[in-house]
């Protein structure tokens, strides 16, 4: 059975060219980039090449790229580092309700330190209203962070508008571009952002390499103090092979971007069309302003984990924002803040497409998925009479 991997949002296979580029740095080129001799200088040079490659992907200057170990680190670094560097000015930050945990929980940790955080809601498409951001601004606001695109519902946020509002109020603006950088055109100058997080494993680069874009002149406090690596802004011996891999992956992503986008968009449209033929299945996220490779739905009356397990039995890999499938056992906060009822949020299913997917794979998914939905609905107490079924008969509304 061939694998149909539709979970590129969770992890991506490494491109062979990327691994090839990394290999010398696992072997003969083992020097520490801080060392003054050839072994060290070669490693240093390799990092600087990667910095240029990553900078080019998002139209930044190489000096504006800081390598980190993960997007979670970049998000913590950006939010906390910029907020702490500005605490003389004020202690209010704004984030959206569509943020990843690594932004959300950083905001919460800042609240514990005495900061005030505003969580701007999203509409039914998962879209943040720039006006709502504007209205949340106070004299104390120093940092705003809004995700570039949600990896759960695919909605691309109006970053340019929000960044302009932040700029007009002299507020630092960060965006989590994990789902977009390397997958759609991302231009920090055009977007007008002050900081941005991105990670290699979202564009066929290695795990363990990520970056933060920090606009020249923007103040920040380090998250990791120590030596003078990364211009003193992020200490720790550089993960040379992973950084080299990120650079190579960025170069390939930039060169192949339009082709990759066309490929996944065509597959996604085909998949979406096929899946929406099933009754009581709803697409989530914005219909147009969305990631080209992401198809996301809620399926009424059944739960996500069951779908995933039966899909897997057919060699199909997908994801779900249901509580049971998240190891934290909480339904996707994005779906909830979009106003999707919790009962329906449990029926979340997310297919994220990648360059290795084929039409045959998609067609096999379109063929299998309705059977799986039917099978689970045949077991469901709600399928025949709707969500009210158990209440009507006096079911325990509060549950166990």
């Amino acid at each position, binding site marked *: 059975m061939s694998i149909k991997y539709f979970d590129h949002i969770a992890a991506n296979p490494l491109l062979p060219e990327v691994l090839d580029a990394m290999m010398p740095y696992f072997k003969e080129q083992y020097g520490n980039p801080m060392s003054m001799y050839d072994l060290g200088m070669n490693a240093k040079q390799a990092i600087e090449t990667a910095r240029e490659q990553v900078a080019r992907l998002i139209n930044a200057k190489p000096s504006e790229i800081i390598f980190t170990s993960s997007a979670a680190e970049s998000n913590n670094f950006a939010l906390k580092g910029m907020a702490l560097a500005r605490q003389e000015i004020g202690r209010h930050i704004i984030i959206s309700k569509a943020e990843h945990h690594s932004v959300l929980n950083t905001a919460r940790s800042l609240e514990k330190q005495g900061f005030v955080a505003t969580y701007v809601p999203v509409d039914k498409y998962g879209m943040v209203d720039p006006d709502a951001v504007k209205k949340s601004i106070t004299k104390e606001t120093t940092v705003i962070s809004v995700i570039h695109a949600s990896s759960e519902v695919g909605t691309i946020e109006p970053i340019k508008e929000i960044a302009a509002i932040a700029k007009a109020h002299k507020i630092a603006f960060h965006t989590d571009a994990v789902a977009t950088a390397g997958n759609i055109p991302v231009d920090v100058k055009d977007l007008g952002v002050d900081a941005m997080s991105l990670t290699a494993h979202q564009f066929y680069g290695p795990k363990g390499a990520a970056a933060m874009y920090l606009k020249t002149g923007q103040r920040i406090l380090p998250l990791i103090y120590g030596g003078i690596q990364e211009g003193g802004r992020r200490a720790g011996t550089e993960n040379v092979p992973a950084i080299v891999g990120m650079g190579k992956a960025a170069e390939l992503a930039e060169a192949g971007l339009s082709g990759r986008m066309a490929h996944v968009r065509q597959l996604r449209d085909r998949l979406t069309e096929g899946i929406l033929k099933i009754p009581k299945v709803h697409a989530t996220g914005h219909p147009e302003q969305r990631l080209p490779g992401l198809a996301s739905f809620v399926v009424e009356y059944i*739960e996500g984990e069951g779908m995933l397990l039966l899909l897997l039995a057919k060699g199909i890999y997908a994801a779900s924002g249901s509580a049971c499938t998240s190891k934290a056992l909480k339904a996707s906060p994005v779906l909830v803040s979009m106003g999707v009822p919790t009962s329906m949020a449990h029926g979340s299913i997310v297919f994220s497409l990648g360059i290795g997917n084929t039409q045959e794979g998609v067609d096999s998914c379109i063929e299998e998925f309705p059977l799986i939905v039917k099978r689970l609905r045949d*077991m469901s107490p709600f399928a025949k009479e709707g969500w009210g079924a158990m209440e009507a008969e006096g079911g325990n509304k509060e549950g166990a």
Partner: protein
Amino acid sequence: MYSAKLMDHFTNPRNVGEIADADGVGMEGNPTCGDAMKLFIKVQDNVITEAKFQTFGCGAAIAVSSMITEMAKGKTLEEALAITKESVADALDGMPPQKMHCSNLGADALRKAIEDYRSRRA
């Protein structure tokens, strides 16, 4: 994550469906929690002769439903009431700890079905 036995009960669930003329019906959970189960029993001479279920929930919830209907059949009501979350989980060769808490509704639904049966006869 799941034992082979649990996966078997999930992928080939026993006793799925409704019993139109059930002697007792028990419901537990609700869709907001992510797990909801409806359990139907037929009772003859204090013995459960038939059991069926409808379940909304994750793989574990479905497997628990399948297993408990199997376990209930042929048992006296008193024996059936002695079935616990733990004995169901054991019968499935174990269950991930986080699922014990939220998806193991079978014993409660069965108890409610028996109570329903008894209250109808009272």
